[in-house]
């Protein structure tokens, strides 16, 4: 009974003490539960079996799904959009993928990407490695966009691959007709069957549905909270692009080509590391809280600075065996601690300059370096070496 009339509807969920009911018109309304009476259960809708026609003569791709908005569905418990589908559902939703390759799908995790952990990076690396050993022509990883760049960097360091490893996601939920999921996925499949030979993120290059950009896994950042073209290559040009709907892939000269690297995996990570953004007036206590950490990346100001008052704490950390690497919160440009006194004092305290590495990439790298190299000096040199395109030797790129 509501509004003086008896209405039939489907009970959806309880929300803030109200019964959410879907009326015949399709509208949901929240009503006092006492005004509802139970009349029967809905007949169950049989689950549809994904039926994906595969074309065997096309290249073989593996889709490893971790969750994220490329595969989302409405959650009635919370009323929010959550990642719930596995890769098979993606193929059902985006039939055009069948014209690009044939697919194996590996459901690894169904998490929101903010819940990603180094442990799952390692599982992901092993899963990818297994697919490479199977001889697939490329691997696609579906991933939530929030921490996609971290995962792409982690896989970049852990895996040597002769084939493309492409991360893809979407910024608009897959339930909506305007979602970027389909185009991103199709472009990711094109990139994964292309001549590329490294870890990349493939997402919208503009707000229009015209082009996807191919970004290097160690030089990419999510630079906008909501736009489709949120991902940007920082400090270098994108590796290439995929035109839509033609699917034509163009690769730049600096993109690593297919077959250039031999397959390999180094999946050890030292998780006991941190990333700290300096701000004016920061208390030394905060730095000292990292005592015992194996590695610490500082996102300093400008050329790579923290306040003078923090330098004794930095020195303390280094003396206790923490590898401290300086990056810049400017994102663009490189660290140079030889210009000002503070910088020189930081170097004297044992800080290692992180070049033009992105702070979060430096964090992932320090985990990987310390997982594989115990010697502090050699670890320090590795941090400054260009392993997977994360450091450039020359600053050629403007803002």
């Amino acid at each position, binding site marked *: 009974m509501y509004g003086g009339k008896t209405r039939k509807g489907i009970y959806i969920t309880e929300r*803030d003490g*109200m019964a959410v009911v879907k009326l015949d018109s399709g509208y949901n309304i*929240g009503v006092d539960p006492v005004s509802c009476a139970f009349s029967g259960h809905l007949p169950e809708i049989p689950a549809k079996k994904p039926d994906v026609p595969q074309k065997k003569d096309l290249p073989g791709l593996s889709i490893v799904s971790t969750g994220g908005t490329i595969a989302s569905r409405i959650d009635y418990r919370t009323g929010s959009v959550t990642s719930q589908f596995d890769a098979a559902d993606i193929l059902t939703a985006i039939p055009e993928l069948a014209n690009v390759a044939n697919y194996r799908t590996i459901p690894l995790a169904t998490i929101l990407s903010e819940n990603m952990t180094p442990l799952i990076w390692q599982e992901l690396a092993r899963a990818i490695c297994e697919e490479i050993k199977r001889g697939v022509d490329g691997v696609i990883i579906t991933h939530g966009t929030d921490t996609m760049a971290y995962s792409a960097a982690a896989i970049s360091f852990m895996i040597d691959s002769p084939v493309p490893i492409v991360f893809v996601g979407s910024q608009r939920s897959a339930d*909506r007709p305007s979602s970027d999921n389909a185009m991103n996925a199709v472009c990711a499949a094109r990139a994964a069957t292309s001549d590329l030979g490294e870890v990349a993120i493939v997402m919208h290059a503009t707000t*229009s549905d015209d082009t996807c950009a191919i970004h290097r896994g160690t030089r990419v950042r999510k630079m906008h909270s909501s736009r489709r073209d949120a991902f940007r290559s920082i400090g270098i040009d994108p590796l290439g692009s995929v035109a839509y709907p033609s699917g034509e892939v163009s690769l730049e000269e600096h993109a690593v080509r297919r077959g250039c690297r031999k397959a390999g995996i180094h999946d050890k990570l030292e998780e006991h590391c941190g990333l700290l953004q300096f701000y004016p007036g920061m208390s030394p206590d905060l730095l000292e809280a990292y005592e015992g950490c194996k590695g610490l990346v500082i996102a300093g100001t400008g050329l790579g600075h923290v306040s003078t008052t923090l330098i004794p704490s930095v020195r303390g950390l280094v003396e206790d065996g923490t590898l401290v690497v300086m990056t810049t919160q400017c994102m663009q440009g490189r660290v140079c601690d030889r210009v000002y006194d503070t910088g020189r004092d930081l170097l004297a305290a044992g800080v290692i300059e992180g070049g033009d590495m992105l702070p979060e990439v430096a964090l992932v790298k320090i985990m990987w370096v310390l997982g594989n190299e115990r010697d502090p000096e050699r670890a320090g040199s590795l941090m400054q070496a260009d392993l997977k395109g994360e450091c450039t030797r020359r600053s050629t790129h403007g803002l």
Partner: protein
Amino acid sequence: MDYNAIGLTAGIEIHQQLNTREKLFCHCLTLLRNSAEHSGEFFRYLRVTESEMGEIDRAAQEEMKRERKFRYYTYDTTCLVENDEEPPAPMNDEALSVCLTIARMFGMTPVRQVHTMRKLVIDGSNTSGFQRTALVALNGALPNGGEIETICLEEEAAQRVKDDIFSLDRLGIPLIEITTSPCMHTPEEVQQVAEYIGMVLRSTGKVKRGIGTIRQDVNISIRGGSRVEIKGVQELDLIAEVVRREVQRQETLLAIREKLLLRKASVHDNAQDVTDIFTSTKSTVLKKAKRIYALRLDGFTGLAGYEIQPGRRLGSEFSDYAKKCGVGGIFHTDELPAYGITAEEVLKVRTHMSACDQDCIVMVAAASDTLARCALHQVIGRAQLAVSERPVPEETRKMLEGGSSAYMRPLPGAARMYPETDVLPVIIDDERWNATTVPELLSVKAQRFAQEYAIDRNYATRLALSEKLPLFERALAEGIKPKLAAFTILSTCTELRRDGVAVEKISDEDYLATWHAVESGRTAKEAIPDLFKGIASGDSFENVIRKLAPTVSSHELKSIIHKIVADRSEFVEQKGRAALGPLMGVVMTEVRGSVDGKIVSEILRKEIDAAFAGKRS
């Protein structure tokens, strides 16, 4: 016509833009722009998705028959929410309040917890592919005993510039949707109910005015027919005609079916490629086409060309369905030879298709085999319906000029809705509902004006419905005489507008200043038209009044009038007091309306009397 006998049932949905400051789900102003002013553009593809019940809506599927790319114009007054590049802001509370006010005016029950839904719309008019909409109140009453089923608060769709180009300025303006039950049974009743609801909406003073700010959708069915929704009736005066024409269409479709059954008409997929027949055709459409296909409809001759509504034939319906595949339309033999297609060519096609006299041939010209087949497949579907037990398909149609209608898509099912998870539900508790006040109905207001201010009843009604009602009420509050304000708003301005004066450029402040000037004797009411002409042409009120009305002292006035009468002594002599009328005009021109006519006529009368007396003596 006895509409009762044919079982006419109709309901309406009224969509009215609300005049809130900001849009429904973002903080952009509710400003309409000229599309030429757009500051950027982008394009998207929309694709069908599965709704929460796992079905794809049939109306959405129909739109997907064509792969469509939509272009959008952006402005410096639109933001990332309209671009579908940012999650929506919380629901605009001002808009919700207006809905609650309207809900109270219809005696409705508010929804305790309002949930915003996503309504699938993939015709490109919403960048997201859905329209956000929330059910706010249920169960209201109409004076005719009918029921208002629901009030929904929705976001307005983007305006189509042309073809697949949309303008984002309109997207997101709050829109109230009022749905009546199917409670009307004559065309006139539908129109009266629409007028009444429109009046209630305007009584809030919070709705947008002007063309396109209110749209009516009419649901119509007759016995044996089907529910058909006709969208986008913008002129209120046309509603009754739209209903009449739809009744005619449904009745005719029922009659056509009877004829088809008598003829044992049938529809089969016998489509064939007839491109070769037209290799040297004179028809420009066919000459350009890559493929031409023909379909034989057995027993349809004469009926495809049968008029079902003014300007519409059964063939027009076939054509509308075919257009969904992206073709320009169809030809059928009831209308041929024409369009450059010769009788000889028609005969060739008929022979090729083994058609006998009773059979009608439908032809389609398309860019590919696939498109041609798709189009004919649509025609087959529609023709099958014409002979089926439900010869009037359930459809959403769009109104054409004059009141006829064309097919848009099937009626949408309930599957097109699912929750908008980015917007939190809003609670309407007793406190808020009880605090919602109801404004005076404009019809009641008109009655009051007539009584309290002794204004003519017809005038009072026009005033209450006028966009200038708030100005009128302000004027009264400031002590302006009701008749002066009413006359200026309704008569003076209407006349000036007719004369091409841009009256809309005159601000409320200018109106008030003008009236105060009249009331204080600084100018005369006769000067108002000239004052307004000056202001409308861009000058300021003060400048115009200074130029127009150099203050004339009573001494000066007397000497002006004296001179005028003296100059026309012969005329005055001839006419006596009857000279008063013609001379009034002369004096008023001389003083440029800066003096009240009453004073002028008084002095003038004395002067004439004096002059007349002088001559006699």
